[in-house]
């Protein structure tokens, strides 16, 4: 069995439906723009490039090094993908990676896939792009700029994405903000160091072997201002909101109230159905027992059904 080692893939059940759907919409929007941009920039060569690179990132996430006492460092890959491919293609590559992980390996849920794409594909890539480009501009493409920029991009992309995960959990009421944010942020501040070091190692390798590959879009067109600003805004927003939310968990009450609003909007709908429609099952404990009996009967029925059809099949064979 396969499981990616980065604790950033949210399983189903941990995000509220509202949060899941909102992030689906954001991710789909980003993907559509990315598709349009890659079509414009690269032409037909993009498909094999992105497909094979997505496979390499997936496999690269299995690489590890021992840190201490049985723990190990890993690669998520959003930063290195961004540096190699530019932001739009990197978004599509990370989207493919995260989707395959969810669809085939249950690493991250399906309903929350939009959120996971958002965290690792959109936030991870945009933040990495913003940081790396900033270093590039500043260092004029010097070696130190590539390496330090790569480290900073990798670290910050992990850290900021983890703050996003923590906020989503908090807004969904799955984990209190004052615990989730420091815990997620703290763990990923460390994980981010591993990501940063591996990214620097990969960049040093590429600097020797293929320095021409390390332009992030410069060689393939102009800077994507939109993503750059997006990365900056995401970074600032999460960096400011997270400490606020974790020190004032009540701040999220506002969000909770919005959800409460949804609940009240729902109520009249059900008040239309009078109580006597389900006479006798108004007691919750009773309902649970009934469900237990019905559930067991279903499972039992299926088991018997299978056994019966097997017997018939073997008889027919004889």
């Amino acid at each position: 069995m396969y499981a990616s080692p980065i604790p950033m893939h949210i399983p189903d059940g941990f995000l509220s439906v509202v949060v899941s759907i909102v992030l689906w919409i954001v991710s789909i929007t980003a993907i559509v723009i990315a598709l349009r941009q890659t079509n414009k920039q690269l032409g037909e060569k993009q498909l094999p490039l992105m497909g094979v690179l997505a496979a390499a990132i997936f496999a690269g996430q299995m690489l590890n090094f021992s840190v201490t006492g049985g723990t190990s460092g890993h690669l998520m890959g959003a930063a290195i993908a961004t540096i190699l491919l530019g932001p739009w293609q990197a978004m599509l590559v990370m989207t493919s990676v995260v989707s395959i992980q969810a669809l085939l390996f249950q690493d991250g849920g399906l309903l929350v896939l939009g959120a996971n794409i958002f965290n690792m594909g959109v936030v991870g890539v945009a933040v990495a792009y913003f940081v790396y480009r900033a270093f590039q501009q500043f260092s004029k493409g010097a070696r130190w700029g590539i390496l330090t920029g790569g480290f900073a991009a990798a670290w910050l992309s992990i850290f900021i994405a983890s703050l996003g995960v923590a906020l989503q959990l908090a807004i969904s009421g799955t984990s209190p903000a004052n615990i989730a944010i420091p815990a997620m942020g703290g763990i990923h501040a460390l994980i981010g160091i591993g990501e940063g070091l591996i990214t620097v190692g990969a960049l040093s390798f590429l600097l020797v072997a293929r320095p021409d590959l390390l332009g992030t879009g410069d060689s393939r067109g102009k800077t994507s201002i939109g993503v750059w600003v997006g990365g900056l805004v995401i970074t600032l927003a999460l960096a400011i909101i997270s400490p606020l939310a974790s020190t004032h968990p009540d701040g999220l009450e506002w969000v909770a109230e919005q959800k409460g609003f949804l609940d009240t909007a729902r109520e009249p709908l059900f008040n239309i159905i009078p109580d006597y429609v389900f006479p006798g099952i108004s007691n919750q404990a009773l309902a649970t027992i009934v469900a237990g009996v019905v559930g067991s009967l279903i499972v039992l029925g299926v088991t018997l059904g299978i056994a019966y059809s097997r017997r018939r099949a073997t008889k027919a064979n004889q």
Partner: protein
Amino acid sequence: MPHRLEPYREGNSPIHSLDSRVRVVMVLVFILVCALVPVGAWAVYILLLALILSAELLTDLGIAYFIKRSLMVLPFVLAALPLVFSTPHGIQFNPAGLERFISIALKSWISVQAAILLAVTTPFDQLLLALRALHLPRLLVAVIGLMWRYLFVMVDEVTHMMLARAARSGSDNPARRTGGTVVWRARVTGGMAGGLLLRSLDHSDRVYHAMLSRGYDGEVRTLPQPSLTTANRWLLAGFILFAIFLVALSILFWG
């Protein structure tokens, strides 16, 4: 022989023979229902669990197969654990939080079983067809398809690299401090990642040329899919109605 990571398991159970598009939608609807059921609606959880266990029984793979794989969501449950001990007045036991925690864990566990069911009973090409039928952008589906094609090649390369590194990670003198520094080890790992990426770039050039030589021009073309049979339409409609009924019922009683 399938690769050790290949999740699909062959079979001719009723679940296997379902139209893959129908199976994908049913699983998604099922997971959506899990998410919509309110906290503490134990009766509904029991029903959902019974449904998914029945479906697992029908696959002929044995329930243990699914249960073992489904336990992988366990570590993430830690993220919700603080609910049990946090109240507006500080750290103390919170019964409502406990109810919420158990609900989240159960929802997650039931949902992941549905996702496993989907992965083990749907061959990858069928999954791609279903994604296309759901109107995912064709280019994205094509990237995912190519990715799958090269996934196992890349995974094997990584496995071999790590074996080769392990083979050279030894010392003849147990007294000496070995292993280098953490930073050095991380950078070596980075070199492995860099090498992998570089080789995959070369690889993609070869794939590109092979595709060109077979007439690829940047346009992803696909065969039209047969439309759903009437029986499948009814099945799907029935399932969705049932799902709506279940959600309405659970919100009515527990919402």
